[in-house]
């Protein structure tokens, strides 16, 4: 059962849905069992036997028709009442509340902005446990969909049509999220993680993220920084403390602290980072990050720079 994320909720929002889902599954299962038993019984009981008489030619029964019209209607009416209730519990209105986070879907990564503190990150969203945050969801290109099964409903990120979504986690942990609306070649690797932390840890994380990394001392990292600015990296990425301030690709300031790379395609390790810089397509074939034909030395320097903020 533990792997059934949608039935294993970790927030009151998801719990409301999971309860309803479990109840509806039971009801549907019973109806199915009823039909299956009726059919199987008929198969066994009414199979043709040699020499059997022609069956009685029954045309129908109004009484039965009423029964099997009325009972489903009643059942559905009950389900409907709970639908309305759970809708409000799982996705309360966000009117008159300014969002805490701005999440923007890009082909194939998620940009995360903490509107109150100014932290910018990607593909990894940190939350203080027990607090309900409001996300404003946008898209920079096509339709994506933000979904963390254990934390609640999914919501489309639609260009030109911002959406609002609550997110909350009961207990510390890492909760897997994914883009759930087909959005092009690398839709599969548009995954993300929600890291729920006790409030103190979360505050520390936020402080660390806000820190502007100093110009690194060691030679390779320093050379990497020069390359970063000289190469066109700055045209697509943001790196606090440098001229790089674009959001075509993920913010790289504290990349070294993140768990995954390239929308979940690989774990973030020095070697996968180097592989990514060498040839992004070897990890994520259609990613919008170009291959710069960097030499191994350049890759090492760039990687050293990106890792230097750890």
């Amino acid at each position, binding site marked *: 059962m533990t*792997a*059934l*994320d*949608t*039935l294993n909720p970790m927030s009151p929002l998801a719990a409301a*849905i999971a309860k*309803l*889902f479990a109840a*509806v599954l039971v009801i549907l299962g019973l*109806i*199915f069992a009823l*039909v*299956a038993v009726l*059919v199987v019984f008929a*198969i066994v009981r*009414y*199979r*043709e036997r040699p020499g*059997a*008489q*022609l*069956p*009685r*030619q*029954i*045309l*129908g*029964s109004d009484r*039965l*028709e009423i029964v099997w*019209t009325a009972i489903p209607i009643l059942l*559905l009416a009950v389900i*409907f009442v709970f*639908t309305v209730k759970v*809708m*409000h519990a*799982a996705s309360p209105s966000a009117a008159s509340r300014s969002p805490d986070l701005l999440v923007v879907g890009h082909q194939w990564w998620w940009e995360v902005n903490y509107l109150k503190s100014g932290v910018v990150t990607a593909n990894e969203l940190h939350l203080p446990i027990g607090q309900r945050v409001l996300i404003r969801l946008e898209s920079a290109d*096509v*339709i994506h*969909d933000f*979904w963390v*099964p*254990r934390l*609640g*409903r999914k919501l489309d990120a*639609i*260009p*030109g*049509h911002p*959406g*609002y979504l609550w997110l909350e986690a009961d207990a510390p942990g890492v909760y*897997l999220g994914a883009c*759930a609306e*087909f959005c092009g*070649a690398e*839709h*599969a690797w548009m995954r993300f993680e929600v890291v729920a932390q006790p409030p103190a840890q979360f505050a520390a994380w936020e402080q660390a993220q806000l820190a502007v990394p100093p110009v690194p001392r060691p030679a390779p990292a320093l050379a990497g920084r020069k390359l970063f600015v000289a190469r066109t990296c700055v045209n697509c990425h943001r790196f606090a403390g440098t001229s790089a301030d674009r959001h075509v690709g993920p913010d790289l300031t504290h990349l070294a602290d993140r768990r995954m790379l390239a929308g*979940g395609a690989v774990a973030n390790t020095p070697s996968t980072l180097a592989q990514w810089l060498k040839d992004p397509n070897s990890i994520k*074939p*259609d990613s919008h990050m170009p291959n710069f034909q960097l030499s191994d030395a350049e890759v090492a320097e760039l990687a050293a720079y990106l890792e230097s903020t750890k």
Partner: protein
Amino acid sequence: MKGYELGETAVGAAVGGERAVWAPHESLLGWVASVDHKQIGIMYMVAAFAFFGLGGIEALLLRIQLAVPHNNFLSPETFNELFTMHGTTMIFLVAMPLLTGFTVYLVPLMIGARDMAFPRLNAMSFWLQVFGGVMLYFSFFARGAPNAGWFSYAPLSESAYSFGSGQDYWILSLLVMGIGTVAGAINVIATVATLRVRAMTMRRLPLFVWMTFVNSFLMLMALPILNAALVMLLIDRQLHAHFFTPASGGSAILWQHYFWGFGHPEVYIVILPAFGMISEIIPVFARKPIFGYEFVAASTVAIAFLSFAVWAHHMFAVGLSDVFNLFFAVASMSIAVPTGVKVFNWTATLYGGRLRFTTAMMFALAFLVMFTIGGLSGVSFAVVPIDWQLTDTYYLVAHLHYVFFGGTVLASFAGIYYWFPKLTGRMLSESLGKWHFWLSFIGLNLTFFVQHVLGMMGMPRRVFTYPDLPYWGALNMLSTVGAFVLLAAVVVFAWNLGVSLKHGEEAGDNPWDAWTLEWATSSPPPVDNFTRVPPVRGRRPLWDLAHPELADELQGRAA
């Protein structure tokens, strides 16, 4: 038993000069130039079967890629092309033409007519269908197939994100087929409205005819929505308009309203004729009339009306207002009621019957149970919060395949075993049929049941690969194995068709002792279908002739 010998008379008699014009020629030209509804019906089915092969191969490739996590068997681009083509093929090039094939073949025969109301229009519809299908597949040779999914959400389907010409081929081919479908719908409506044999009142109409008649109204109203939207998308792509491009003031959501405004009725378009077949087959092999004829027919009308008010249940994740969502939740739940009425009436028909388990009947019974799974899992999508969790996951993939495979395909298999003797004069092999049945039944459940679980675990649909999370690999592997069992089933079926066509047992006019009019003529029927149509005094003309003492009309209800 047979009280009425008919259709055994040689075709050559009577009728005269007209026959020369309508007479089918067995040559290739004879088929291509045919306006005979039977030849056109068979051509529809053959075309559908050919595309079923292609769509099936696409599905197998997809399943191989998904068999294990982090697989590299297909590139993401190829995967996306294949699932787009698989969906588009199965809906537009298999389900639609197959059911249309049954419709144009059977409707005139069942109502005692000589042909469709507009035979030439019928041929036009068919050839537009073929042309559209070929054009869609030509895209593979012209810079790549479409890859934005079978519902081609904007702006992904716009030129900024889908720059190959595949998307344009997709638009044009659907448009061409859509025009053919609208023409076909008009044709069926006109046929049923005007060409029924004397005394075949609407209350005596076979249920298959009822359902295809109602279905034609659905097509007539739904396809133009799609056609209009396709033209708008084409204008966007080719002439740089902005209907669906948010970056320049258009609306991405508008496309969804149009597409599902068509798309949900479409779901019923590809299931209602299947309901019709089941409503014919189950009674014949239960040796009883359908239980609650009026209710089965009326529930079809109810489904048709409701199907135009449920489209936005495909859009609950868009984030529209609660009131909007609730309206569509109510409508979507309501549609379960008439659908349930059908299932219960079919089941009730079995009770007190004398069931003969021919392959056709076995498929029909499997339909009853499998479609129920698809229908019930569908209810979970009407419950908005559950939809918020499960839409766009493998749970949805499982649901739609229980409806289409468990529903439309199983019913069509039943229909083919049932009517093949009429179409060809020969019986399909029952022993191969049993193999076909069991392989289909096991393969279907193995492939698709586990997908419910994957969806509940959080696996999104349309991913070309997935991380190695607990159970994901194992369940996907099971699903892939199931797909190969289905392949075996289809191979057995194709073998059965080929062998039986040549060597099958002679069928005679009415091998199943059935009672609708198509069984009152020879197998295959002569060009003009009937030398004499037997008198229609109830819903089961041939039954009435065989069992005058039990005739329906004597029981007062089936007037």
